[in-house]
């Protein structure tokens, strides 16, 4: 009988602890990324960034006193997997918000589901179709392929080049980029004199480039990612083609320069400012954000990529919206994300509104060129 006293106290204490824990229910952030598969070099830094930033925010006391909990699934770049994982995030894991969709295919596949469920979704993929036409619950933070196309055409116009040969891969990113290039070309007075393609796992593009060599092209645009653009770059030099070569933002990393070696010299591409953070003037608004992210990421994982930067932007925009909304209520957070103004991220300065769920303009891209094995800003 005399033992009962402390048992009751213990039980009461336990109850108090559990109910206390219940009071600070974490905010659940759902995520689905292509950490493995062909787009792994995008998904991998994205996941690392999310984990890093979540840990960081929790160490500083969370959002409105609530810690963040990251629930992540790896899609392997398979759009069907992406859809089933998003269903699981919404129905089983009951997440408050979703950040993810490394590839455009993954992102586009889940849009009907998030629209139906009414949950804010911040996509990290490039295709302009994700936010055009505007969907109520869908936002994106990565530059679109249309912006890349426009930036390349602007640079071509400055150099007075109009006849261009196009060579693209067979992936979703490549095809979407090709479409935007073809659609936008007339506005800039550009004509395509060749339109070649290759398989993204191909090992030799000299037949396609031989055809381009015999056309009257003044410049070549290669839209793709992975190792194929590096092979195109090397094959071009091998064939003795000395035309200006433009690549897409898909290869804006040191890896491309390492792979293509000396052949990469003079290659131009539109890239996010993260690639050239140190070269920005100190008056640049983005510079402190870029350097801070870069320092933090590189201390833990090695060289940064712009793709990890997108994950940073997405999560920070969501966190800022939750801070403004006061809690993680889906509808309130959605409205607040839409009101994002002057948010300085790694991809640029975001100014969203009900008709623009991305909020970046062309200034977010810098035209860079490979000089002595490093990216340099072209002015």
């Amino acid at each position, binding site marked *: 009988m005399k033992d009962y006293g402390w048992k009751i106290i213990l039980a009461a204490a336990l109850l108090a602890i559990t109910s206390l824990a219940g009071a600070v229910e974490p905010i659940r952030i759902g995520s689905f990324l292509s950490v493995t598969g062909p787009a792994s*070099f995008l998904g991998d830094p994205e996941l690392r960034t999310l984990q890093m930033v979540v840990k960081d925010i929790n160490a500083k006391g969370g959002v409105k006193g609530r810690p963040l909990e990251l629930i992540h699934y790896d899609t392997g770049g398979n759009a069907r997997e992406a859809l089933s994982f998003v269903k699981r995030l919404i129905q089983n894991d009951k997440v408050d918000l979703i950040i993810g969709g490394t590839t455009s295919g993954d992102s586009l596949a889940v849009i009907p589901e998030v629209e139906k469920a009414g949950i804010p979704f911040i996509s990290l993929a490039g295709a302009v179709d994700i936010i055009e036409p505007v969907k109520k619950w869908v936002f994106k933070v990565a530059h679109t392929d249309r912006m890349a196309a426009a930036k390349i055409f602007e640079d071509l116009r400055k150099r007075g080049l109009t006849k261009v040969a196009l060579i693209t891969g067979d992936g979703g990113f490549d095809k979407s980029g090709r479409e935007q290039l073809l659609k936008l070309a007339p506005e800039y007075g550009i004509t395509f004199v060749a339109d070649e393609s290759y*398989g993204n796992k191909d090992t*030799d593009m000299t037949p396609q480039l031989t055809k381009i060599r015999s056309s009257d092209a003044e410049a070549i645009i290669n839209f793709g990612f992975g190792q194929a653009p590096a092979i195109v770059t090397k094959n071009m030099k091998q064939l*003795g083609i000395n035309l200006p070569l433009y690549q897409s933002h898909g290869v804006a990393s040191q*890896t491309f320069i390492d792979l293509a070696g000396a052949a990469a010299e003079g290659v131009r591409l539109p890239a996010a400012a993260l690639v050239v953070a140190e070269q920005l003037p100190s008056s640049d608004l983005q510079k402190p954000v870029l350097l801070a992210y870069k320092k933090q990421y590189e201390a833990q994982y090695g060289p940064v990529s712009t793709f990890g930067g997108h994950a940073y932007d997405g999560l920070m925009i969501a966190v800022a919206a939750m801070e403004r909304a006061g809690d993680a209520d889906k509808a309130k957070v959605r409205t607040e994300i839409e009101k994002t103004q002057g948010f300085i991220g790694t991809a640029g300065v975001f100014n969203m509104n009900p008709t623009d769920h991305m909020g970046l303009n062309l200034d977010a891209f810098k035209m860079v060129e490979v000089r002595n094995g490093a990216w340099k800003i072209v002015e």
Partner: protein
Amino acid sequence: MPEQLFQFLVTGITVGSLYALVGLGFAIIYNASDVVNFAQGEFVMLGAMTAIALLSAGLPLPLAAIVATLLTVLVGLLLERFAIEPTVGAPVVTTIIITIGAAIFLRGIALLLWGKDFHPMPAFSGDRPIHLGGATLLPQSLWVMGVTLLLVVLVRLFFNRTLLGKALLACSFNRAAAQLVGINVRVMLRLAYGLSAGLGALAGILIAPITFSSYEAGIMLGLKGFSAAIVGGIGNPMGAVAGGLLLGVLEALGAGFISSGYKDAIAFLFVLMVLFFEPTGLFGHKVADRV
């Protein structure tokens, strides 16, 4: 036009040489055991990745290439000893499925060791293209073609002139009879895996400076090499070499003259046509099964 054609041929023969070496590996193992070894592409990848790792560790190129090849041969032997040999007597399909599993396993190991990135490898003798009558080719292409030719001649001599090679061939014609005349079939099987792994590794090391390498590089090459072996008549080593060259040239011509988008379709359509009209391959033995 003629110089374009020449360029396409140069490209086709370079890529085709690679398919030929991979196809040769398929043919040798098929000969010895009736098994299609789907880990053949992974041997190519392992050879290239190991060589790249050794190079970056500071080994000179010839040494790195030799050590990488020997290590891959060792992997081939281990694969045979621990995954294939225990299943002797099991249906061929079982063994084929095991090789698919082995391929996934090897890919996983490579992923853990070297990550997901593509890795470059310096060319053996520089990147300065050689001009040949309007076409250009890389010194590395000459390496690929030359070493392939050498290896094919060596493999041919091995099968036709040495007792060991003939014993291996005997296993392919009739395993029971080979065993009865005193050939150790198990040792032959090990030899076949070691040889295939070595050829694969060399192919990988030769091509890595042109195409880079990653843990996944073996998948597509394995598929193309398999197609080469099929076109040539699976089980005929020289057929596989011819099949590989044919496939490479067809791909290059298809990409150059018809449409680059249909390059692979043209190559695979050709494989289908061959299987349709010559089910045993262009150079395969005519098989007559006794009913």
